[in-house]
């Protein structure tokens, strides 16, 4: 039986470990679907999908090492990128050297793509596509929001998105009364939050990974900090954030690249967004979030490109990816010259009654923006 091997480096241990689970679930779901359909059709011949996993211990140098190992030793045909912007950027150097197409499921920062590599593609639009609609929504719905405080984890993705936020806040006439980074591994934010509280911002914007956001949210409540708008990126899209934050998640707003409420009718193996959500729920008894979906769509995109190329030749598949212009359950997919997707319109949402409710774009809107976070 012929197989196509895909390499997927995952941060199974170390600080990013929770993300590894999501990515693996997304990849596995796609592989299962593809194999159930008989495999990938390459010029009339069916190939089974096999995904090779490895743990890079949330350590960027190791992700580079494992990428090379997968390409040279495990002889994978194609690569998925490691998690996040930093590792994807580092690993893409290897893919570029070996001329192996790499699809990064979770790299949004434009810095990842600024080397104009030919073999790297990513399914997250640039960070400003999240912050701009957010700002516009707040401007439109809460005119009295004048002051914003921004607190960012000092790490590639969270910091990049905070900087975008600062830009778009300034562009929209908001006053940025506080902009600070916090160190990775910070346990206590109470002093920082007390200070923010004393500045009386109407909008508090925080970035970080799920644990940072949970920590900060809890300590905001402890400090009895109230604000008209509280935005957190990227945790609130995750079910575990909502569960762990409980009551305090209410009215937190966020933005992400995908939402299960979207209604695309795709040409990929999953078809409609609803179908993807159903398949995912059946398999994992969980509501999928954007991280699951992005991993799955990466597989689906590879499948389409390979089938279109009708060959396993890496350059041909790469060219198909570069030319790609198609609608999927994830949304319309078209990559820019630098490899980053530029066709998505990321949704803005808010936690209401323990559920993420889409506020924007209007086409899939589920509810109205609510002010006031206690």
């Amino acid at each position, binding site marked *: 039986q012929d197989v196509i091997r895909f390499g997927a480096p995952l941060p199974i241990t170390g600080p990013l470990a929770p993300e590894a689970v999501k990515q693996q679930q997304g990849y596995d779901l796609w592989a299962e679907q593809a194999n159930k359909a008989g495999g990938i059709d390459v010029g009339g011949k069916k190939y089974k999908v096999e995904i090779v996993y490895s743990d890079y211990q949330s350590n960027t140098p190791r992700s580079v090492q494992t990428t090379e190992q997968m390409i040279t030793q495990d002889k994978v045909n194609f690569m998925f990128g490691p998690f996040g912007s930093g590792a994807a950027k580092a690993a893409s150097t290897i893919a570029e050297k070996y001329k192996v197409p790499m699809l990064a499921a979770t790299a949004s920062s434009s810095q990842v793509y600024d080397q104009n590599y030919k073999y790297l593609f990513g399914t997250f639009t640039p960070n400003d596509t999240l912050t701009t609609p957010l700002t516009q929504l707040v401007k439109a719905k809460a005119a009295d929001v004048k002051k914003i405080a921004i607190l960012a984890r*000092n790490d*590639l993705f969270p*910091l990049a998105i905070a900087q975008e936020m600062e830009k778009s806040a300034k562009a929209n006439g908001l006053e940025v009364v506080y902009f600070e980074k916090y*160190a990775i591994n910070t346990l206590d934010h109470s002093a920082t939050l007390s200070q923010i509280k004393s500045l009386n911002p109407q909008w508090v914007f925080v970035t970080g990974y799920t644990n940072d956001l949970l920590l900060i949210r809890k300590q905001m409540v402890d400090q009895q900090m109230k604000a008209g708008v509280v935005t957190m990126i990227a945790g609130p899209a995750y079910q575990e954030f909502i569960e762990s934050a409980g009551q305090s998640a209410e009215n937190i707003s966020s933005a992400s690249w995908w939402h299960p409420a979207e209604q695309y009718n795709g040409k990929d193996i999953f078809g409609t967004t609803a179908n993807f959500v159903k398949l995912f729920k059946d398999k994992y008894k969980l509501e999928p979030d954007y991280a699951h979906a992005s991993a799955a769509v990466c597989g689906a995109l590879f499948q389409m490109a390979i089938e279109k190329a009708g060959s396993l030749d890496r350059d041909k598949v790469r060219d198909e990816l570069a030319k790609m212009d198609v609608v999927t359950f994830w949304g319309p997919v078209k990559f820019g010259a630098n490899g980053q997707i530029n066709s998505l319109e990321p949704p803005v949402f808010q936690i209401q009654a323990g559920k993420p409710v889409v506020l924007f774009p209007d086409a899939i809107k589920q509810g109205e923006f609510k002010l006031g976070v206690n």
Partner: protein
Amino acid sequence: MTRTNIALLVLITCVAALPLFGDAYALRLGTMACMYAIFALSWNIVGGFAGYPSFATAAFFGLGAYTTGILMNKGVPLTLSLLGSLVLCLLLAAALGAVLLRLRGHYFAIASLSLVEVFRELVNNATDLTGGGMGLNIPLVSGSSVLSDATFFFYAMWGLLLITALVVIAVSMSKLGFGLNCIRQNETASNMVGLNSTLYKAIAFGLSACFVGAAGGLYAAWVHYIDPSDVFDILYSVKPIVMALMGGLGSPLGVVCGAFVYLGLEEVVWRNYIQIHSGVLGVLIILLLLFLPHGLVSLHAGKIWRGLTGRKAKHV
């Protein structure tokens, strides 16, 4: 020159033959092995000879990486940048060493550990120069193909290892090495016989930092992209110690063997156990410590013989 030092040079020479057999990934592993051997040898100058348990390896690795990265971004060629890393780490470590090495034992360990944190946060916050949390791109010094690239960096790292080993051997045979040995055994007495221990320790700390710094620079050029949490990873400090302990504290041959064996184990375990590799590695470390408390160098024929015949080894 002692027999073990000759054995060390022979071992390193053998490693140079790797490109004849291995592909690019093997070369990557070889490059890593050389890098860790440099760390372990360097650590041994302070930790093994002078007996000061330093955790500062990661600090100077990161510093060296960023120095080279920044210089290369300013158009300085690789060799000069590496020299820059080496000299900067040498001088800075010597200066810091003069102050920090007044501390003994645990206290020194903690202070050197804090150096890593301080350096990382300084680099993290000097956003204009280093890119901070956004990381730093380093221009490619690319050869033509994947393999020639890998070979280039392998030999570069190997060469650095050879230089490090030669320097360490020279130190071990010199007055400096003798003095560091005195300091380890009894610092009060060392001072009393006219040994300027502050100077000796500063030199030792400087030497133990400079090759680590150069290796950091080479690493940065090799991977093209660094960020603070990668290069100031505390594991770069811890692993050389584990390697030195596994190989045999104080013996240059031992620590290099320790480095190679540790990396070999890590690679095998990592490949075979996706979910539980770090646990398995932990078990191996513990078993090695319990059954080979004096390191691999103690594993010579006599020892095995005594072990088999059940006679107790002599403890001194």
